């Protein structure tokens, strides 16, 4: 009864979508009320992106009806969708890096704006309306992630968007930037713009959203007002089972000092020195751009640095390239798994074996049988969900892709595993599996350096935490004896 009276800006009814071999959306029905901030949560592979791409015109649904603002949506294209008032801000953004902010906002509409003067003038007004001081003439590539996001929002506003879809808006933002974003979201809300907010960060869902839809395996599990939903219930519905805790018990295997870093200097880093103990999970916290990734890349030999003295078990080791690091027993799982971690069009098998190839080669010939065994071994031990070891790794979900990269390094004799944002963009269920894996690794004598932006994660899993700010180590903390606020303060120092 109540639904009929409510004004729904978007009516998705029984939408289905399949791709070769997989049913991405199964009878999905969601009603989005006008003016709401409507959250959508679900594990990777739940169908959220597919649904959004159908809404914005990138994909075509197989069947079902979609009604936006009273009009039926059929055979739509991204341009038609934009013009009808539906904007989408992708996680990776849709901007032309080499062009200016103003040009990006009005891309393709310069004539309507009466040339560059009109373009930049309007762009300035739009940016001011969301309290963004970025110069409209600045090239987009010079902007920070947060600033690029502002440009995307201004672009949506320029289309008089009635509905804005935000896909994982805060995954690359610092705490400060997230605060700014929340102000803008509340502002857009007050202006009456409907927002669809997709995020893995359940805290944000609870903070912003009026209603939330939970998806799993291509189906809608439930749509409820946020007030009627508890965190545990949400997670249970996302995952299909109850999760007792989000994190396993903290491992306590810390032994003697294993790795000693001193005198690490580079353009960004200033005299970094620290140690890593055996069996330890060392958490590294810092804002984007603080130098945390630069530190681990330097240790791994991926970047050239000055002066670095690296000692393992008391012996000085010279690392000039990643191959040297590998030989010394150091492994790196990079932050950007798609561009730096995996070879997307290659098979799961090839991606897993690529760091351990030398071991597979008798003289110069590769042993195919051993390679298959290696891949199957990791597939089982890490529970990688894939149609088979020969499946293309680009078809796997984020969590399973991450497991492939991890599996690759588990096949080498690495004692020191560096994980840069290991659970970014990964659903709750897969995160837990990765935490368990980390625990197993240190219980078996390995050591882990973990860079993470999720304070809860760092506090729950690490044995010791270092904060990095502006190329310097600003603090060292015992996670059982500190708080998120203290760590944040130190990382902002």
């Amino acid at each position, binding site marked *: 009864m109540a639904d009929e009276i409510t004004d729904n800006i978007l009516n998705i009814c029984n939408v289905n979508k399949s*791709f070769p071999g997989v049913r991405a959306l199964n009878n999905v029905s969601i009603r989005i009320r006008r003016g709401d901030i409507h959250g959508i949560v679900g594990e990777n592979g739940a169908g959220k992106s597919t649904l959004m791409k159908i809404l914005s015109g990138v994909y*075509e649904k197989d069947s079902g009806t979609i009604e936006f603002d009273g009009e039926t949506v059929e055979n739509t294209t991204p341009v038609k969708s934009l013009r009808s008032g539906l904007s989408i801000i992708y996680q990776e953004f849709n901007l032309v890096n080499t062009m200016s902010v103003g040009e990006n906002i009005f891309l393709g509409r310069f004539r309507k704006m009466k040339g560059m003067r009109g373009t930049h003038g309007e762009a300035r007004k739009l940016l001011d309306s969301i309290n963004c001081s970025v110069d409209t003439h600045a090239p987009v590539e010079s902007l920070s992630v947060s600033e690029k996001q502002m440009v995307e929002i201004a672009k949506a506003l320029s289309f008089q968007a009635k509905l804005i879809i935000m896909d994982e808006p805060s995954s690359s933002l610092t705490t400060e930037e997230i605060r700014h974003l929340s102000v803008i979201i509340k502002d857009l809300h007050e202006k009456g713009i409907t927002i669809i907010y997709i995020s893995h960060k359940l805290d944000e869902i609870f903070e912003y959203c009026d209603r939330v839809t939970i998806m799993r395996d291509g189906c809608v599990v439930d749509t409820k007002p946020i007030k009627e939903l508890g965190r545990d219930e949400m997670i249970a519905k996302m995952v299909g089972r109850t999760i007792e805790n989000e994190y396993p018990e903290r491992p306590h295997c810390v032994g003697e000092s294993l790795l000693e870093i001193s005198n690490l200097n580079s353009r960004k880093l200033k005299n970094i020195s620290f140690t890593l103990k055996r069996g330890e999970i060392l958490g590294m916290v810092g804002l984007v751009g603080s130098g945390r990734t630069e530190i681990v890349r330097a240790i791994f030999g991926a970047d050239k640095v000055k002066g670095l003295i690296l000692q393992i078990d008391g012996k000085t080791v010279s690392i000039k*390239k990643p191959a040297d690091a590998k030989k010394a027993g150091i492994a790196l799982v990079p932050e950007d798994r798609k561009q730096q971690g995996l070879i997307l069009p*290659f098979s799961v098998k090839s991606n897993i074996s*690529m760091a351990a190839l030398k071991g597979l080669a008798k003289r110069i010939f*590769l042993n195919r049988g051993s390679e298959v065994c290696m891949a199957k071994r990791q597939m089982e031990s890490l529970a990688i969900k894939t149609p088979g070891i020969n499946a293309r790794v680009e078809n796997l979900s984020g969590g399973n892709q991450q497991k492939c990269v991890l599996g690759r390094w588990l096949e080498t004799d690495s004692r020191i595993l560096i994980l840069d944002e290991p659970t970014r963009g990964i659903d709750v269920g897969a995160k837990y599996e990765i935490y368990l894996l980390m625990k197993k690794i240190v219980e078996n004598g390995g050591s882990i350096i973990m860079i993470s932006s999720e304070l809860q994660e760092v506090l729950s899993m690490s044995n010791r935490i270092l904060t990095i700010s502006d190329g310097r180590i600003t603090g060292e903390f015992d996670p059982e004896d500190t708080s998120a606020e203290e760590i944040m303060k130190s990382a902002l120092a």
Partner: protein
Amino acid sequence: MKKELNLKNAFFSFIKNYFVGFCIILLVVITMIYQPRFLSASNLLNIIRQLGPLSIVSLGMSFVIFAGYLDLSVAGTISLVAVVTVSLIEPLGQMGAILAGIVIGTAAGALIGAVVLVVGANRKSEALFISYGMGMAYSALALMYSGGVTQKLGENQKIFEVIGKGGWGILSVSLVIFIVCLIILQILQSMTYIGRSVMLAGGNPVASRLSGIPVNAVVVLVYTLSGLLASIGSVVLVSRVTTASPVIGKTYETNAITAVLIGGTSLKGGNGSVMRTVLGVVLISLMSNCMNLLGISSYMQSVVRGLVLILAIWLDSKRNS
């Protein structure tokens, strides 16, 4: 709509994978209909003869493309090796001259690889022009060294005679040389650590480097291989035409690249195979032969070749979308 998508993808995939074979069959059938002479023994022998130098050079080019690069220098290398080899027959004897030529050509390739490394291995467009520029330098060297004169292979150059004309019926010596190179390179690509490293580096050089794959070594290796095979091809070519013109290598780089791409290997690197290149060469040779028999002018033939190349690249892009 669901069925359409599946069918379209499968269709393009199939066509892409078997494009070359499909074209070959089509071409043979058409020619057989219009020119029964196609099937004569002498013609077929001729086709196989034609396969010689280009196929050898294309094998080397394949590896460069597997790694995600392009080698525009082979024309220069071929010319340089040709004039140097022939000029050294007197002082070094035939075998000596051949070996010297091959060493020089291989070194020429290695040098390109080294320069690409110095400039920055991740800059693939720059690498393209580096190979182009150095190829021009090698061509110029060939002209300077020979004084612009086309040297003739003298009488009684037994080894060259054997390479150029020898053999047992259909199995010409140049064909055997090609097959030997083919087998070695196919094994290298599909069964060795080196071959796998090339494919991985071509697929994603950043991820490969971060996994400990020696991507820099791969770059130097593929250009060196290209130089080596271009040299071998040059020796075979000189043996066949019994002269060494300082511009003998002209058009080899574009034809070699065309052969590799028509075979179905993608320009972006990390995929393809030596066998695909062989099919590509067969198709190009067949196209030349058949179109000659059908009386198609050489200008028209170039147009057709270009169209087939574009078709191959388009199919590749479709498969990846």
